[in-house]
């Protein structure tokens, strides 16, 4: 599917389509391939000497998260609780807002297969929770519950709200995520991780600079979250995180307009091997982050549960997984 960013307006009875694509400053190309470092480009420095990665960045993309496999169940991963093949609903729009998006092989670059090495128990837990989402709020992902999209899940591209503002101050790097209204404040002053008794939804981030690369080491996770929450992550959506999760992110500004982002994820209780995602973040200085106060009106949770109760009263067939 190509760009679906037009707001179709049919004027009068003639129903003539007019493309309304003019979203100020957002029509540039947005290549999803990792960029090669520019040969003669040196990143600027902040006043305190850090490589300067500040700016407004986006990562809209048409690249699938994993390489597709015939055993995949895309409708199911999209929430098809009835098995009608309509998990994500009839028709779909990816709000790319006028960008020209390239489509690469997969965001997962390691293992080379482009497939995340998920343990069988974790896939079973995902399946159960997706199938029984109408039965209990704990079966929703933390995004659906408006808690968090997680780390690193918060930077896995959603189809809208894919803006990230990076700000730096002495000893810190801050990242504001448009989706879902989250901010990370990452110390880069050499302090150690929190004591292991602290368990957090998004873990404890500690950054350091290796040359021009910001390396962020994330530990101290709780076991309540998910590695990925949005439907674009398909098979990995709703896969649990354990307290053993260890994430290492690398942000490298390779030219004025591009940060190469890489993240290595290891969780020996959930995955049989570490795996890695790589993608560019593209500079969009005119992009505006809108407030996304997710819990403001999250009717989806009670409405989904009430849909399940209504179906129970109507004699919904028992579900087996």
């Amino acid at each position, binding site marked *: 599917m190509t760009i679906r960013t037009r707001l179709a307006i049919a*004027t009068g009875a003639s129903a003539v389509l007019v493309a309304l694509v003019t979203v100020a400053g957002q029509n540039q190309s947005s290549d999803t391939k990792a960029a090669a470092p520019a040969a003669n480009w040196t990143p600027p420095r902040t006043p305190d000497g850090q490589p300067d990665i500040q700016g407004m960045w986006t990562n809209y993309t048409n690249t*699938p998260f994993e390489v597709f496999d015939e055993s995949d169940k895309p409708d199911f991963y*999209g*929430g*098809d609780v009835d098995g009608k093949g309509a998990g*994500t*609903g*009839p028709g779909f*729009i990816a709000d790319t807002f006028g960008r020209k998006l390239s489509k690469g092989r997969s965001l997962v670059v390691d293992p080379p297969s482009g497939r995340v090495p998920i343990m069988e128990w974790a896939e079973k837990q995902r399946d159960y929770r997706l199938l029984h*989402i109408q039965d209990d709020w704990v079966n929703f992902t933390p995004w659906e519950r408006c808690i968090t999209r997680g780390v690193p899940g918060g930077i896995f591209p959603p189809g809208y709200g894919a803006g990230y503002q990076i700000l730096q101050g002495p000893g810190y790097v801050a990242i504001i995520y448009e989706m879902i209204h989250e901010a990370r404040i990452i110390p880069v002053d050499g302090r150690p991780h929190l004591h292991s008794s602290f368990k957090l939804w998004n873990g404890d981030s500690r950054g350091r600079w290796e040359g021009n690369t910001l390396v962020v080491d994330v530990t101290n996770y709780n076991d309540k979250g998910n590695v990925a929450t949005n439907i674009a992550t398909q098979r990995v959506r709703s896969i649990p995180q354990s307290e053993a999760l260890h994430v290492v992110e690398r942000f490298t500004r390779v030219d004025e307009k591009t940060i190469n982002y890489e993240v290595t994820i290891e969780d020996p209780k959930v995955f049989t091997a570490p795996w890695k995602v790589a993608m560019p973040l593209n500079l969009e200085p005119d992009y505006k982050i809108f407030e996304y106060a997710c819990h403001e009106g999250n009717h989806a949770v009670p409405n989904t549960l009430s849909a399940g109760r209504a179906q129970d009263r109507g004699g919904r067939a028992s579900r087996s997984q």
Partner: protein
Amino acid sequence: MSPRLLLALVATGSLVVATPVPAIAHHAFAAEFDGSKPVTLKGKVTRMEWINPHAWLYLDVSMPNGKVVNWGVEGGAPNALLRRGWNRNSVLPGTEITVEGFRAKDGSNRANGRQVILPDGKKLFIGSSGTGAPLDGRDPTEAKK
């Protein structure tokens, strides 16, 4: 023209099945709404809630029994609607509109919106997770892909 319910519950077996492309859902459409129950609502806007994670549009609809019922229609996230061209004046209270969408599974007067048709015939795509996108083939008056 008084508000009226145009069409409800047109069962169809011809749903457009989603393919594994990047998807935008905050939540699963099918857990809450029934893709086999499209509904067309016609009535006057009572309010538009620009709330996250999904905007909600409310309108008074005259049901077949003559009773006026307030329906709620789930739309996309405010930031997505704004970027598609919506603004605070797009559907002011009192505006006579037609909404195409899909009914809630719990039987309440709620729907997941696909598009809003304004009095002058203009169409605004309000879709959130899993509603038909422009050019998805459902509207014969739209140009083909």
